[in-house]
């Protein structure tokens, strides 16, 4: 009996310690304050904005902002059915899917007011305020597929998928010669993104196909390529998500495919690491701010988008996250402030003719997902 009281005493103390952060007075105060204020619900990637941008928005409009985070676009598409958010930050892929499912509000650009570099409040001017490579991609997408992103989405960050490699281990000549095949070379330890779409993108490009192919035979070839990669590499390959950001600078991998924004952080942490955009082709992507049809507070959502498209907030975000800002003024100022040519190179997101933008096709997406499960299950 005595032992029992002892255990329960320990448990009570332990529980109290564990619950301490919950009872923090500050949190309660905030909770009480938010009951009487207007609230804005935001759904973003983890570690994808500077919290100061949220605080300044809350102060400016005397509102409360709730931020939830998601790990991938698939989660956004599923979660949006169950919960209502005011502003969401998905990739261009998900924007296409959501538009095809008629779940996005058409943006009313008249309601989006930004504060530019000079401090003037004005409307956003897509052609002059956005960086040239993004404007080019948007125009290309519009002319090729007839899809106008700006009708539904405000650009947030711009990036491509690139190869980072350790220059102490792999020479530039070698990576130029082997392209994505460097991740199939068991001499080097490689990391592939744990994402069906991105893994198939490198296989398809390396095989000389478009990464948007809907031809199941070509997807089958890519599946074989990836299975062989898994077999040949053995313990030399890893399938990772955000861990690469810490693991590549720590020297755990010799080569890794990453988003250019993550590559920036990686190269900033370790000067032996450089990047290469394979000339066989890679994918260009951008994340956007969208307003779903089931948003509760659309007026405030427009104010928030304007806030995030403003010069000052754009600068804060790009400095905190390391991803390339699509805002021309921010972009130019960041490039001007960088000295390391590697970092200037990666921040500029240099694109080439062979690069592509993902176009959404449900049947192909499902075929690739199933094939990816088979790749992961193979030995």
């Amino acid at each position, binding site marked *: 009996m*005595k*032992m029992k009281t*002892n*255990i329960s005493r*320990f448990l009570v103390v*332990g529980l109290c310690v*564990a619950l301490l952060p919950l009872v923090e007075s500050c949190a309660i105060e905030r909770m009480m304050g938010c009951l009487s204020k207007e609230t804005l619900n935001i759904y973003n990637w983890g570690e994808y904005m500077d919290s100061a941008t949220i605080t300044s928005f809350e102060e400016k409009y005397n509102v409360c902002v709730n931020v939830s985070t998601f790990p*991938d676009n*698939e*989660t956004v598409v*599923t979660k949006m059915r169950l919960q209502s958010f005011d502003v969401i930050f998905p990739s261009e892929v998900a924007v296409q899917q959501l538009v095809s499912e008629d779940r996005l509000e058409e943006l009313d650009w008249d309601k989006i007011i930004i504060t530019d570099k000079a401090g003037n409040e004005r409307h956003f001017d897509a052609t002059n305020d956005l960086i040239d490579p993004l404007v080019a991609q948007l125009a290309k997408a519009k002319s090729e597929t007839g899809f106008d992103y700006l009708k539904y989405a405000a650009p947030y960050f711009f990036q491509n998928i690139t190869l980072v490699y350790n220059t102490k281990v792999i020479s530039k000549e070698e990576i130029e010669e082997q392209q994505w095949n460097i991740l199939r070379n068991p001499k080097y*330890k490689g990391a592939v993104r*744990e994402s*069906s779409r991105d893994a198939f993108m490198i296989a398809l490009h390396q095989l000389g196909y478009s990464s948007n192919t809907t031809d199941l035979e070509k997807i089958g070839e890519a599946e074989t390529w990836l299975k062989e990669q*898994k077999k040949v590499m053995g*313990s030399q*390959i*890893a*399938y*990772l998500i955000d*861990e690469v950001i810490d*693991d590549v600078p*720590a*020297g*755990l991998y010799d080569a890794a495919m990453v988003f250019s924004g993550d590559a920036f952080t990686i190269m900033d942490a370790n000067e032996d690491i450089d990047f290469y955009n394979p000339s066989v082709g890679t994918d260009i992507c951008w994340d956007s701010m969208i307003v779903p049809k089931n948003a509760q507070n659309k007026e405030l959502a427009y104010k928030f988008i304007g806030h995030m498209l403003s010069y000052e907030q754009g600068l804060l975000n790009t400095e905190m996250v390391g991803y390339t800002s699509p805002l021309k003024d921010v972009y130019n100022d960041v490039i001007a402030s960088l000295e390391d040519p590697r970092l200037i190179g990666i921040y500029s997101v240099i694109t080439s003719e062979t690069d592509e933008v993902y176009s959404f096709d449900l049947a192909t997406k*499902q075929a690739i*997902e*199933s094939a*990816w*499960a*088979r790749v*992961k*299950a*193979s*030995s």
Partner: protein
Amino acid sequence: MIGTVKKAPGGRSPLLKQIKAYIKRPKTALERFKLLGIPYYLILLVLVIIPMILILFYAITTPNKDDAILLTLNNFIAFFQEEGFVGVLWDSIRISGITTIVTLLIAYPLAYIICDYKLKKQALIILLVSAPMWVNMLLRTIAWKQILSTAGPLNAALGWLFGMEPINFLGTDFAVVLGMVYIFLPFMVIPIYNNLSKIDNRLIEASLDLGASRKYTFFKVTLPLSLPGVLSGVTMVLLPSATTLVVPRFLGEGRYFLIGNLIEQKFLKSGLWNYGAAISIILVVVLFIILFLTKKVDRFHKDEEDD
């Protein structure tokens, strides 16, 4: 139950009145005691039975283009036909089996030793065993990842002591089993300890008095009496380790693709809920068979007692 109510006088009162009469009738002590179980039954219904029925429903149906629902066994057939998927199931069971055995081998002696301490110390040690559970499991797994990586402290120590080249432990059976044993150890120690501490010491004294050696006493008295604890420990380790997602992902360098990862992929990434549900059902059946076989050990032990 309602059917057993005696007809109200007059025999023509509507059903609603009958139900009211049934609810308001005088209850025996036992009946009143049973009412305490209602919240439990409700929770069981909402959190266990309904979800199970939903999973089963998803598993045996397929959505049609015209929003109709068709009954089918194709989801199950597809699993067995897909190359490598049975291998994934086998791998999961193999890893969770090894984990359970290793955990048992560590937990049993530990629980046994703990029982020899004074009560105060016992409480402290049990607290220490369960203390890691207060820290988020994801955090602990990532900590192991740091320890085991080629740039981690384990390799640094090995290199310093034996001058060894760094070994990549991540992505090996060793790392995955180690991570799982670490995570699930308390689930094995606590039931075994609870069971061992309740064994009447006089039984052991009697055995020793009657001339049995310590070893003989352990195998013939202590071990059989502690089997129920061992069995609940095995259940509590085997089931979660067969379906864990976090450990294989972080300690397996993404190369380990176990059944839990497969189900997650089918549900969240592919959106194939029916297929994912079918795989879950297959897993449930396989685990149920394994548990059934394990329980046989206990039954055998009961038969022996009867003789």
